[in-house]
């Protein structure tokens, strides 16, 4: 598809200009004044920019011939002369809606400025988001304004290429396909769906299976909790579902489970985990986290103990743990399963772990009201999930950290492997892909692209992606902020999703399409969703109630399914365990692991610049994926960063991926992130990373043993935003006390004053250079404001998930600089998360995360060096930046010890629009409260000064001279899943931030320079198990 921004531009000009253009393309003289189907005409406009300009000129000239004089086309901008009710220009409106990635559903509140959604915040009323979001939810706004979105239906033309069409033709053609299939009872039809969390969509999925009884439904969604669900359905019955909960969990064992990063419900789990993670004084209770994983994830970075272990051994670890619990702690397991449990050969470290962890899990149970949790990640096969469920139940975690429910509406689905088999046998001839992309997501071993080419494919998707290019028909889907919908989170909170904007292009919602396929009728999504809930509630439904739901973002009064899953098929699990343990992993051969990408998920954010540019939480790589290997493995392979590694999976294939050496990676394993290497998807995604799914195996695609890994010639430059991983670069550099840590001991902390002990200078030794000078412009800034702003960041809570970085991008109009400029070290993020490794063991170091943003120093080093006073202090203690005054000497950035000032080396905003092809849509997503910076000026975190001033104006109107605590919430604070960031008035001792500043863990970074930072940190406390220390 050619870049369709030209037609977009036309769309945003006046309607007059638009119609003259369209007619110019066809019959220049005759104006069709009232085009019958303007959208259809839009779709035919597929001209390149040059010819577009030419046509524009030609049509204007011809218009001149007919009218006798040349006039500029009339373009009007329309103020709200008649203001829509309740809309105050410049004042944002907020609407509750929902957001989903795989099994994770978040209730969110979307901010709209003059009808344009610009920012997503968490909905505090929603149990799954609890007021926070992840980075993906933040980035969805940019996806809405993606210029590479699919905009019109397309069909395969004469030459086999996709050509623009319209919905009328699409309706007709697909109705033809469907009516044929309906006659055959749906035989030969496959419906490929993602993880369905929408009740309305589920209703129509049921309808579909009724209309097409012989059709088969397949699940193709790498973000879906497929293995976890398979385990539950194996143990209990179809529709059995489980959720993990960490509230009150004293001991958490995460087995290849990145529950802070990409696991289902990671936002809620991270928040629940953080609740008992942050002791403010010695002796306060704190949970303990064990992580067993092959790849260093943020969960591992936040663990008290981390064991790097091959993925194939994680299940064995759990078996060994079960054996330990059964033999030494009297835990009872069902007989079938107990029969399969035995000691395992795991290596020295793991052997030490098993008894210690078992003891800890049992100890947690003995505390009243306390419990533990064993979490298994989606990458592990179903039997490991099953065993974890059994163990959780056996040690009393069910109803606490493991909760079961039954989904009455669940539709049985099959995996993509089954789809591949059916396609190759010719059983399936028609494939309907609803918001799925099997050609890209299915494991490479399945050769899905080739197989789909044999069938008639109807693809509904957001982009013209790999599957769309194989399809007979491609139908563009609306963004979730454009259409009505509903979502049910894993633990049962339901939300009606409101649209914030009319579909910008000629797109339709997935709900509407599925309902159409199922019933043959096309209805607006609103009617479908409204109708669903009306039917669901029956007599108790009322318009008033509906409006309440919309307002709160929570659906209430829906009866829950009375049935709970009952575990009965222990024999099935037992044989699965037996099978799983059958082939011993060969330690001397490589294991290749595939992971969801913390940035791009399964690739759905591949064309999203914010997610591409946000650094990988552990490696800090941007715009690329890599083959992560441990330092020892790198030595063995003689590979260095950026060297190409040839990774070969027997009988599947091989790929070349650049190396990134990652301390903490299990030896002899390679970790790869999926979601990259997408070709022809869009300008952002082009050339980013390598498609690693090509070497995934069909069965259990997440890891593969017996792989051949070798260094090959050549390099691919990949860029990390943080070159120096450790605090110790050598040359006698003594570690600066930038991050301060202690550990818990019996009833206290090893060093109760560890935070203050890190100060290199005593407070009384620090003297201001300016204190003698009373002159306002020469002395210290006069902090005479009634309220003094400050921020506290809790390093115990922060897990490095990047949500704040993405939120800051969205709130503050931070430009994307692109792959090359990141390579030049010029990323613009106002907020970054510094990741440091610590500990002497490079094979298994500890890692810490430290969000770093403008510290708003009271005696800011940046201020006195600016020759034009472009950065100065506000009376309320903010380090203000006047972009208009800045001439760009960059002296402030040099003198900033925290290096948080960012310089517009180029006109990055213009580049985003022109070079990255985001014009003009990206402008719609900009926050009008924040200046869009021009080239040549410095910018940096402002503590969201637009929010501070907004709140101050509100307070002023209501007659107060101060803003109450908690009213001003900065963008980073708002989205933080772990509530690690607190912002407020430090002059008032009753505020949250003042109280946190008064705790023992509070310290400032580089205070020995007498910067007096307003942002302070709560030092980290680790809670190690003395038996493993």
């Amino acid at each position, binding site marked *: 598809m050619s870049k369709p921004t030209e037609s977009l531009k036309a769309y945003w000009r006046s309607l007059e200009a638009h119609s003259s253009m369209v007619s110019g393309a066809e019959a220049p003289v005759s104006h069709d004044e009232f085009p019958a189907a303007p959208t259809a005409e839009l779709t035919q406009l597929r001209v390149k920019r040059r010819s577009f300009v030419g046509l524009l000129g030609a049509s204007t000239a011809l218009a001149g011939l007919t009218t006798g004089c040349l006039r500029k086309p009339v373009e009007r901008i329309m103020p709200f002369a008649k203001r829509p009710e309740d809309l105050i220009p410049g004042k944002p409106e907020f609407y509750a809606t929902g957001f989903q990635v795989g099994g994770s559903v978040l209730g969110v509140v979307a901010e709209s400025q003059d009808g344009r959604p610009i920012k997503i915040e968490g909905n505090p009323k929603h149990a799954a988001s609890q007021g926070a979001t992840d980075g993906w939810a933040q980035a969805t706004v940019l996806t809405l304004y993606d210029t590479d979105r699919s905009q019109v239906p397309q069909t395969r033309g004469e030459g086999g290429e996709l050509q623009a069409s319209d919905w009328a033709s699409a309706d007709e053609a697909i109705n033809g396909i469907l009516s044929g299939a309906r006659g055959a009872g749906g035989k030969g039809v496959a419906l490929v769906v993602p993880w369905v969390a929408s009740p309305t969509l589920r209703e129509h999925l049921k309808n579909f299976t009724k209309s097409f009884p012989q059709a088969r439904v397949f699940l193709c969604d790498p973000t879906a909790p497929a293995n976890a669900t398979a385990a539950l359905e194996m143990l209990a019955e179809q529709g059995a579902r489980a959720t993990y909960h960490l509230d009150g969990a004293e001991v958490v064992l995460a087995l290849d489970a990145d529950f802070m990063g990409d696991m289902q419900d990671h936002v809620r789990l991270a928040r629940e985990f953080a609740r008992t993670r942050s002791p403010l004084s010695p002796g306060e209770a704190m949970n303990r986290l064990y992580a067993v994983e092959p790849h260093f994830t943020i969960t591992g970075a936040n663990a008290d103990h981390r064991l790097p272990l091959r993925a194939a051994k994680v299940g064995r670890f759990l078996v060994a743990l079960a054996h330990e619990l059964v033999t030494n702690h009297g835990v009872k397991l069902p007989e079938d399963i107990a029969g399969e449990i035995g000691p395992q050969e795991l290596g020295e470290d793991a052997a030490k772990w098993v008894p210690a962890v078992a003891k800890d899990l049992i100890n947690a149970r003995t505390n009243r009201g306390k419990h533990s949790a064993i979490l298994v990640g989606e990458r592990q096969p179903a039997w490991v999930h099953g065993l974890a469920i059994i163990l959780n139940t056996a040690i009393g975690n069910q109803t606490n950290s493991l909760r079961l429910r039954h989904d009455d509406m669940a539709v049985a689905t099959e995996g993509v492997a089954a789809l591949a088999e059916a396609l190759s046998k010719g059983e399936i001839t028609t494939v309907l892909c609803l918001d799925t992309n099997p050609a890209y997501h299915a494991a490479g071993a399945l050769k899905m692209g080739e197989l789909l080419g044999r069938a008639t494919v109807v693809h509904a998707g957001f982009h013209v992606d790999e599957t769309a290019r194989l399809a007979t028909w491609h139908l563009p889907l609306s963004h979730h902020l454009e259409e009505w919908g509903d979502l049910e989170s894993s633990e049962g909170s339901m939300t009606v999703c409101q649209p914030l904007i009319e579909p910008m292009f000629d797109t339709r919602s997935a709900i509407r399409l599925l309902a159409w396929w199922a019933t043959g009728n096309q209805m607006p999504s609103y009617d479908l969703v409204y109708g669903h809930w009306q039917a669901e509630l029956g007599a108790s439904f009322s318009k008033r109630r509906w409006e309440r739901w919309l307002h709160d973002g929570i659906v209430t009064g829906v009866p829950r399914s009375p049935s709970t899953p009952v575990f009965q098929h222990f024999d099935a699990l037992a044989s699965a365990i037996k099978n799983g343990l059958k082939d011993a992993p060969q330690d001397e051969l490589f294991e290749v692991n595939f992971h969801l990408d913390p940035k791009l998920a399964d690739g759905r954010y591949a064309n999203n610049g914010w997610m591409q540019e946000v650094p990988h939480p552990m490696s800090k790589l941007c715009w690329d994926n890599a083959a992560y290997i441990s330092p020892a493995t790198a030595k063995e392979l003689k590979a260095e960063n950026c060297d190409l590694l040839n990774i070969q999976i027997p009988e599947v294939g091989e790929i070349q991926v650049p190396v990134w050496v990652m301390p903490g990676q299990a030896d002899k394993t390679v970790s790869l992130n999926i979601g990259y290497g997408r070709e022809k998807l869009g300008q952002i995604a082009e050339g980013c990373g390598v498609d690693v799914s090509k070497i995934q195996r069909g069965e259990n695609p997440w890891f593969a043993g017996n792989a051949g890994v070798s260094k090959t010639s050549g390099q691919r430059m990949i860029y990390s935003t*943080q*070159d*120096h991983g*450790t*605090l110790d*670069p050598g*040359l*006698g*550099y*003594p570690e*600066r006390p*930038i991050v301060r840590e202690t550990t818990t001991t019996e009833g206290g902390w090893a060093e109760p004053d560890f935070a203050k002990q890190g100060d290199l200078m005593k407070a009384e030794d620090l003297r201001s250079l300016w204190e003698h000078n009373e002159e306002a*412009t*020469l002395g210290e800034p006069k902090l005479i404001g009634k309220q003094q702003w400050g921020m506290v960041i809790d390093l115990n809570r922060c897990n490095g998930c990047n949500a704040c970085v993405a939120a800051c991008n969205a709130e503050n109009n931070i430009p994307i600089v692109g792959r090359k*400029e990141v390579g*030049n*070290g*010029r*990323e613009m993020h106002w907020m*970054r998360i*510094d*990741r*440091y490794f610590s500990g002497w063991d490079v094979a298994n170091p500890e890692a810490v995360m*430290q969000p*770093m943003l403008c510290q708003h120093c009271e005696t800011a*080093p940046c201020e*006195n*060096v*600016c*020759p*034009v*006073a472009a950065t100065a202090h506000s009376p309320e203690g903010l380090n203000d930046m006047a972009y208009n*005054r*800045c*001439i*760009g*000497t*960059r*002296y402030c*950035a*040099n*003198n900033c*010890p*925290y*290096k948080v000032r*960012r*310089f*517009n*080396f*180029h*006109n990055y905003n213009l580049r985003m629009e022109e070079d990255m092809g985001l014009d003009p849509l990206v402008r719609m997503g900009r926050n009008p409260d924040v200046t869009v910076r*021009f*080239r*040549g*000026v*410095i910018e940096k975190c402002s503590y969201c000064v637009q929010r501070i001033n907004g709140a101050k104006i509100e307070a002023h109107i209501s007659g107060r001279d101060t803003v109450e605590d908690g009213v001003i919430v900065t963008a980073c604070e708002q989205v933080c899943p772990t509530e690690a960031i607190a912002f407020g008035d430090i002059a008032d001792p009753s505020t949250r931030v003042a109280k946190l500043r008064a705790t023992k863990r509070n310290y400032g*970074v*580089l205070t020995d*320079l007498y910067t007096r930072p307003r942002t302070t940190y709560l030092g980290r406390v680790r809670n190690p198990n003395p038996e493993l220390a």
Partner: protein
Amino acid sequence: MAAFDELDPLSGRKVLVENNLTFHDVTEAVAAPIEIPNARWWGFFIVSVMMLGLLLVSLGWLFWEGVGIWGLNNPVDWGWAIVNFVFWVGIGHAGTLISAVLFLFRQKWRTSINRAAEAMTIFAVICALLFPTVHTGRPWFIYWPLPIPNQMGMWPNFRSPLLWDVFAVSTYFTVSLLFWYVGLIPDLATMRDRAKTTTRKIAYGIFSLGWRGSTRHWQHYEKAYLILAGLATPLVLSVHTIVSFDFAVSQLPGWHTTIFPPYFVAGAIFSGFGMVLTLLVPLRSWFKLENLVTIKHLENMAKIILVTGTMVGYAYGMEFFIAWYSGNPYEQFAFANRAFGDYWWAYWIMISCNVISPQLFWFKAIRRSPLLLFIISIFVNIGMWFERFVITVTSLHHDFLPSSWDYYSPTFWDMTTLIGSFGLFFTLFCLFVRFLPTIAMAEVKSVMPQADPHFGEDGHHE
């Protein structure tokens, strides 16, 4: 080359003009090359103008695209532009030192080199002024640091060393230009009187301000010259002191050092004399000025280079000593990183060029060999450029938080801008040697034996 210097028959000191030239011979020696076009000059001029063109292209692209065309990145926000600025300001030191300080100290040998050295100063400061202007993100607002009353009611920030820099360098430039021009007036009058074409007559006529050489003119001239010398002398010390404040007043380890002002001044004189040698050694040979710019002159300059080079070497050592003595481990790291970190090669280039190569000037034979002097002067120039590179970049690239550390490398445009600035410098210098007397004829004549009131009394009249 004379094995022994000629001695002045009256004072018994070494003569400053060799081979017993008369006043007329001096005028001819200096003025003739200006009046007759020279093929070699054209060659140099065309190359210089081409390099100047490269500068203009680089600046055009810079203004169009922004400073992102250079290799700057987040921790290293100052790169070659600032390095070049300090380099050129440093070069611009020797001229005023020779003409003002040596004048006050009655160092008569200064007379045959001061004109060229001062011209070099003016042109170097022009090159220097270019860089802070174009290195800003928005150079069209470069006048904002000037205290111009404006409708915004905004004053510049008087606490900023960059602002001090604006004043220091612009003052230095103004005074140096005036000083140079005042010194030129008698010679311009000579040129006017010798001029054969109308253009020359008019141009030299205007700029010689009606100089007729009356006693009254000479009296005013010498007073003005003395006053300007007195004004310029403190500026020689202040300008590089203040340039060093750009670094010393910041708080970056490696920049924040009290030794910077004297160290920068010594370095500036060192580099300035280096550049004077680079220019004069070929000039005296091509323009046949060996009798005026004698080996003795060159030797004197070599001695100054030896002294200042050693001072600079002392400063390098002292920086390390203070870093150790301070007991501040981060300060120690900053210097260890300089010598043994990612940029070790730059540090050792600097040490070999600035500290080791001038030590060769202990040998008289080397001091008196124009070829060796020229070669070593090139080393001095290279070394002093690297000194500024080492100071600017190595301190920035590893600063406080290791998370931000990065490596800086220049781009194509960094290099063209530096090469282009040499184009600007040499273009101006070529124009200077083409149109203005390269040696202060009037001043040289005043130190010749013939100018002595007692000359000829012993009957040694020729």
